[in-house]
């Protein structure tokens, strides 16, 4: 089970959280003006990164807040968690994961 560092509450077990998929996928402001490609891209296309992945989590059974995280999908180590509205931290400034 993952140990996830909620930016509001600190480290808690994964069971307290709900995963929210890839982060920073913005809903087009005016869907009627989107092409089919743009709309499908928003709905279905994802990076599915092998490596660093920016993703949303919600601390459902805790503070209830949404936040974002950077996680390495090759070893599941979290590199950083950050609040909604903040940009993803630059990777040099992020602590190296334990290996």
């Amino acid at each position, binding site marked *: 089970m993952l140990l996830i560092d909620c930016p509001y509450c600190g480290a808690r077990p994964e069971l307290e959280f709900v995963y929210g998929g890839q982060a920073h996928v913005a809903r087009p402001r005016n869907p009627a003006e989107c092409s089919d490609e743009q709309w499908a891209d928003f709905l279905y*296309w994802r990076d599915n990164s092998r490596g660093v992945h920016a993703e949303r989590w919600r601390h459902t059974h805790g503070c209830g807040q949404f936040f974002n995280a950077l996680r390495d999908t090759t070893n599941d180590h979290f590199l950083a968690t950050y609040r909604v509205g903040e940009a993803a931290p630059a990777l040099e400034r992020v602590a190296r994961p334990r290996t």
Partner: protein
Amino acid sequence: MQRFSGFSLLRRGLSGHRDWQPQWRKPEPKAAYDAIIVGGGGHGLGAAYYLAKEHNLRNVAVLEKGWIGGGNTGRNTTIIRSNYLRDESAALYDHALKMWEGLSQDLNYNVMFSQRGVMMLAHTVHDVQVFKRHVHANRANRVDNQWLTCEEARAVCPLLRTDDIRYPVLGAAFQSRGGTARHDAVAWGYARAADALGVDIIENCEVTGIRRDANGAVQALETARGLIQARKVGVCAAGHSSVILKMAGVRLPLESYPLQALVSEPVKPIFPCVVMSNTIHAYISQSDKGELVIGAGTDAYTSYTQRGGLHVTSHALEAICELFPMFRRMRMLRSWGGIVDVSPDRSPIIAKTPVPGLYVNCGWGTGGFKATPGSAHLFAWTIAHDRPHAINAPFTIERFRDGRLIDEAAAAAVAH
């Protein structure tokens, strides 16, 4: 190829089984092939076999980054059925099921296909309605599937506890042509048969790049064992499909998740069929070795680690113990994970890509073992003809853009 038969077994038995040849060669990669399949699972090895057998393409290679069958083909719980809801899916999965019925003969390799029946339990009114809808839809597509009352379900599987549980069993859908097969034998059987037709099976050969010509068409693959030319490349890489397609600049509507399974210590034959429960989330059968084979759910998050959380497997075991209290004292022997490529509508993609010469067979997610022969056969057809066969024509990448989804989310016998 040394053919297997009762007689050949007996004859070699008399000499202590010492004069069997290796079942496939270990060739060095050639500089160029007419077609290359990336991924040595059942789907990839099968596609190479059908390219050689049915389309007479003999200069074919399968490139596998590890060992053949080491991906999801060797990690799955081997459940085979074809009672899917949509017409497109019923046609696809039943094409595969019909091929399973003759596969051991065709390959001269016992894949231990066993039509012991697959039972899908209904625990809620909603389950009952959904499964009955499936039974009717399947009947319209001439796919066998029947509704069993609770008593009838217990008659098929006497170990099943239906009352006195948190979600009592209200009935079940049962496909008697469904069952299981030996997963390793599927990989090995296809490898041996493909090799006999001249296909080069090259292990420890990770594909790291895709080179394209001035027109954007596929030209060659960069691999751990050097550059290999090919004008046709078919990718069957399950959870790694999006990683490989990205090498050619193609993004896919897929996400990769860990999916786990586990087996118990082996016991005498006790379990007559396959039982799956969506609502309380578990599935179980007994292998011919005697192990109970139990499937768990996917983890919540995307990952490439081939391992998942312990709470996911313990959840599946709790459900099994509730349905089959006599298994409470069984000990689990091994558990493992595989990386499954989940598509938004839970249906696969067997299609051409925007890159000329590049084909993809992916998105099988948690349920592609059952489709192995059919998928391989249709993928070979698509590569050979450079257009899809009628059965896989709806399973394109573009269907997500065009809104022509083939929604099988409810049909996945367990919710992943």
